[in-house]
């Protein structure tokens, strides 16, 4: 069971401090020392990436959207929206999804630089996203060579928070079996009565995940 911040409780007291200490020894670049500080209270960063496909090893990131969350507010005025120039041409199929053509991306940043900006933007704040594991894996391809390890921030998975919330509401007899809960983003958003915006825009997706996070925190604290 996850806590109100979406995290599973630490196994040992002082575990986080120990982990940070260990990571700072392995950190390759001292510029990123801030990433390992204790996170500011009540702050998170909602994150989403658009990619050329779903293969973590071969596909590439084309855009990154990130929004800081402070309490119940999404600071879209301080958002990060980056276009990333992929090394290979973008396939027609993926253009159809995120509608970014090669020529649109020609002015984008190299992935390496985009990730540096992103790390500065996130700092030590926990990450929030929908199927965040995939985005983190994609980003880690550029993050690992930079830091010596993958993104160190705690990650809050919206679909997992939502699953827990829905599971709790099921009558006990249904909790026994493999509960069938629809985790699609559009289902989740409309079930939570939140506004749905056009998907496959990194910033929109990040904002929607951020809103779902803020609302789920309230639902679970009520």
């Amino acid at each position: 069971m996850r806590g109100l911040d979406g995290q599973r409780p630490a196994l040992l007291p002082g575990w986080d401090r120990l982990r940070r200490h260990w990571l700072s020894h392995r950190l390759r670049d001292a510029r990123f020392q801030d990433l390992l500080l204790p996170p500011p209270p009540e702050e998170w960063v909602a994150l989403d990436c658009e990619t050329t496909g779903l293969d973590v090893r071969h596909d590439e990131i084309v855009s990154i959207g990130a929004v800081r969350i402070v309490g119940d507010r999404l600071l879209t005025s301080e958002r990060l929206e980056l276009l990333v120039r992929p090394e290979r041409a973008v396939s027609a199929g993926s253009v159809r999804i995120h509608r970014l053509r090669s020529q649109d991306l020609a002015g984008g940043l190299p992935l390496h630089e985009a990730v540096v900006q992103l790390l500065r933007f996130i700092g030590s704040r926990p990450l929030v996203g929908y199927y965040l594991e995939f985005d983190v894996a994609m980003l880690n391809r550029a993050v690992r060579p930079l830091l010596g390890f993958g993104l160190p921030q705690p990650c809050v998975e919206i679909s997992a928070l939502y699953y827990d919330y829905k599971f709790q509401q099921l009558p006990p007899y249904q909790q026994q079996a493999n509960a069938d809960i629809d985790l699609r983003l559009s289902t989740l958003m409309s079930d939570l009565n939140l506004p749905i915006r056009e998907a496959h825009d990194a910033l929109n997706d990040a904002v929607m995940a951020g809103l779902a996070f803020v609302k789920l925190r309230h639902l679970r604290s009520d």
Partner: protein
Amino acid sequence: MPNAFPFSLSPFDCLDPDEQRRVRASVDIAYFPQHAAILEPGDTPAYLFVIVKGYVQQLDDGDAVATLGPDDCFDGRSLVAGRVSSRFVAAQEVVAYQLARHTVIELIASNATFGALLFADLGHKLSVLAERQQPRELPSLSLSRVGEAFLRPVHSVPAHTDILSVVRLMREQRTSSVVVCDEAAARKGIFSRTLLQQAILDGRPLQSMPVGDWARYPLIEVRSTELLGDAMALMLRHRIHRLVVEEGGVMLGVLEALDLLSYLSNQSHIVTLQIEQARDLQSLGQAASQMTKVIAQLFRSGSRVELIARLVQQLNARLFERAWQLIAPADLVANSCLFVMGSEGRGEQLLKTDQDNGLILRDGYMPPEDLQGICERFSQALGQFGYPPCPGHIMLSNPAWRRTAKDFAAMLRQWVWQPAGDNLMHLAIFMDAHAVAGDADLLAQVSEGLHQLATDNDALLSRFAAAMDAFGTHGGWLSKLFSLGEAPAPLHLKKEGLFPLLHGVRSLALAHHVRATSTVARVQALVAQGALSPGEGEDVLEALHVFMALKLKAGLAEQEQARPVTGTVSVQHLSSLDRDLLKDALGVVKRFQQLLRTRFHLGAL
């Protein structure tokens, strides 16, 4: 999601691309759980909120004064004042855009329309809208000034000029009329082709007949700054086709009805002609059936609703008069006064509603034996024209509403002495009586009697004013307006908005000896007497016009879909601007009711 900011909504729809970019760059998104206080009195406001989802209640001293829904924004006023004065609470959980204060202030500085729309009072808001709509819509008949219309040059001749010379001048100048100056009698008149026909039929030689004998006096003039809609009403009232336009005593030109009407492709002129020329009830019915079309055209082309109402009043009056003339014998018409009451009498009717009318017979006149039959035929004819019979039988086919002047005066006295139930409502409806055919003096005498009877009777005045709450829905509109359930009940515009306003004004008019029968004229008179402040008067009239416009819009839509006209609007189907106006107008009703409660000591009843 900043890209999804609703720039199509008022007041953001007046921002240019650069200003829109500024908004996108500084907008945040906030979530408020149900019951969360978004703003508290005394707070320093930091944001303008635009609701994406959910509902917010605005409370003043614990009183809910407004409910805001998706696409509404708040609280622009406090943002500029620098201090929050109302409490804003999430009635349902709310997702809202929040726009930083400094951005809003910058936008106000760079875009005056934005500022005006954000902060304006109801009246100001409407005038800003009218200005904005003008370039987009057809030049509207009723919003344009007489001076802007096509004016024909004025030709004037002395009264002693012979008709043959005048006709020669008219032919040379290609004009259909001349102004005749009668120096001796110090008057001016007009001579036109229609009058020429009469002169020729007279038989005397034209070269020896002075034009002054045939001209029509007096000359009807209109100032060049008047609205075209008013000019049209003037022509209809005098049944003439030309007005001389003057400015500072100088004749600028002649405004001809056809020119005025070709200005817009509306058919109100044709309807007037049809009414004038109808020789039987059937052709009169055809004219009546055109009226709704004309109203819809005028409304869609942006004419102000109060001008449309005035036009409709004139058309209806002509229609009723014509029908009465076709049905009743001439001596009955001459010795009686046919009058209309209620919305028709006040000149606030737009779509056809129930007939409310009556007939005053001259004292001592012996009406035809078939009077009942004549009156029934008249009520039936109106029914066929699309004016349904009055459910309360306030029609001249009912003998109670068809009396001699003496009997009418006695009936009014009885109503005043026993002001209860139906008597009060009859009194109220009679106050709006407006003569349409026959001898208008008869009605004037009876009305005068009513005012002398009623004005010093405090108990009557209080009870009369108390009928304002007759529908018993005070305060109920708020929950209806933005009912938080799935299917909000439709809002009944007459019950919730129009009736309290017009009856309140009617009560004040009775108390202050105001004889006018239209709400607009009554408010103007009350303001002139100091019984209402100019601001209060303006608010009441603007709110009245908002309700009338919404009612007309909803009614036209219902008619188009061949549904019965219900007089209601479903709030969730209104545009955010209409909703805004409705909200402000309902706020005016609430304040006005409060004012009247104090004025008439209604708490004591």
